[in-house]
């Protein structure tokens, strides 16, 4: 698996898009830190960008890479390699190179800014950790979609729909449910609703860490109570890990059944 990972990673490192993605974060980091000078505001802006953009890029890159490397995959399938290691290697190659663009792109300006002496280091680390989780989750979801759809256009369509649903539509539906049932106690429901969407979960995690739960409004107190404790933090990280593990398991399962 490591060899496949190595080749997929190199392959992506040579592609222009990895650099564009890296340069984008670099620019964003530099602009926010050096032209703004307010660290907490910079982190919030970064959060808003990361939470929407990372899933989108992860989804698109995942689907695109899978379809583009179809020939390479077929070449590998005839070699004495396990199917699961071929697909996991490719998946990790994409996910890790994207994560690296994110971490280096944002990390470099922060290091130059003097992150290690700043108190925001934990806020910032949390930002990068959730960003990496989102990359792992959405690349895995994208691989799942691509593996289940031979038709590229369909695969792309479903992938974009998935992103749109989790990043935008889910929130709307969630809010509507909360308004419709406002007469009932909704703490549990809203907590579960947040847990079920990795984007919402990441956003809540970061906002609470930044201590601006007031932004969360109605259910802020409930979240604060729950996420604020170490138990809440552990539960949210476990949920994020489950969000990675389940799609990855399905990649392994699907790869064993698929015909090429």
């Amino acid at each position: 698996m490591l060899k496949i990972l190595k080749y997929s990673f190199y392959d992506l490192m040579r592609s222009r898009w990895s650099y564009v993605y890296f340069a984008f974060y670099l620019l964003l980091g530099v602009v926010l830190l050096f032209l703004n000078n307010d660290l907490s505001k910079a982190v919030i802006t970064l959060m808003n960008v990361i939470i929407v953009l990372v899933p989108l890029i992860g989804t698109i890159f995942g689907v695109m890479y899978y379809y583009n490397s179809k020939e390479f995959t077929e070449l590998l399938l005839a070699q004495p390699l396990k199917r699961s290691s071929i697909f996991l290697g490719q998946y990790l190659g994409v996910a890790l190179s994207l994560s690296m663009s994110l971490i280096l792109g944002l990390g470099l300006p922060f290091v130059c800014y003097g992150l290690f002496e700043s108190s925001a280091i934990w806020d910032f680390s949390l930002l990068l950790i959730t960003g990496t989780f989102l990359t792992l989750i959405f690349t895995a979801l994208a691989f799942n979609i691509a593996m289940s759809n031979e038709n590229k256009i369909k695969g792309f369509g479903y992938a974009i729909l998935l992103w749109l649903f989790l990043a935008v539509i889910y929130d709307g539906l969630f809010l509507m449910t909360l308004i419709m049932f406002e007469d009932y106690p909704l703490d549990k429901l809203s907590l579960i609703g947040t847990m079920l969407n990795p984007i919402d979960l990441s956003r809540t995690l970061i906002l609470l860490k930044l201590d601006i739960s007031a932004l969360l409004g109605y259910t802020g107190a409930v979240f604060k109570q729950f996420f604020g404790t170490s138990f809440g933090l552990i539960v949210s990280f476990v949920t994020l890990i489950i969000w990675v593990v389940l799609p990855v398991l399905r990649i392994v399962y699907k790869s064993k059944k698929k015909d090429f």
Partner: protein
Amino acid sequence: MVTIENLHKKFGKNQVLSGLNLTINEGGIFAVLGPNGSGKTTLIKSVLGMVIPDQGNITVLGENIKKNSEYRHKIDYLPQIANFPSNLKVKELIKMIKDLRAFTNAEVQLIDLFKLEPFLDKKLGTLSGGTKQKVNLVLAFMFDSPLIILDEPTTGLDPISLIRLKDLIQKEKAKGKTILITSHIMSFVEEVSDEIVFLLEGKIYFKGSIQELKTKTNQPDFEHAIASILTDNHA
């Protein structure tokens, strides 16, 4: 060498292989023939483990291939359409496959045989179809495995390369290897193969030498013998 028992495969509603049984003994060149869509490629891909059969057993050199990948060390495979990652150079591709599989030096002679030196530093995406097929051949022949599977090996080759390919196949046969070929070029099949396996509607219709086929169909030459099977069965 290869034993296939009761192989079934369906793609959606399309039953491609229906209860195919085949035994291929060690040594010699076997041609798998059949009309379009008769399941030749599916059969080959099943042996390689790229297609998962719905039912049936396949053993290669005594090893059951189900949930196994190690047996592919003993197979060299030439895919039908040479599609390679287009941003890799020929040299890099060869190096990569060697890294993934095993160390070998045989590619030097093969590159020389097919006159590929000028292309080693070119990207695969820029190569012509015939040159890609030569690269494909180098990759397939460089590992010296006891079983060689060639899916349409003649595609895109110029006459001189075709002669070299035939020589190469004969040389491998002389080493006692088993070679499985599919091709639509009947003259090529007639020239190289020792035995033919004719697939029809997902089953083996005929297995034996070309002479036996001619006798069976009462036709003087190979091409007409094949044609007569097809017309008899589709009339």
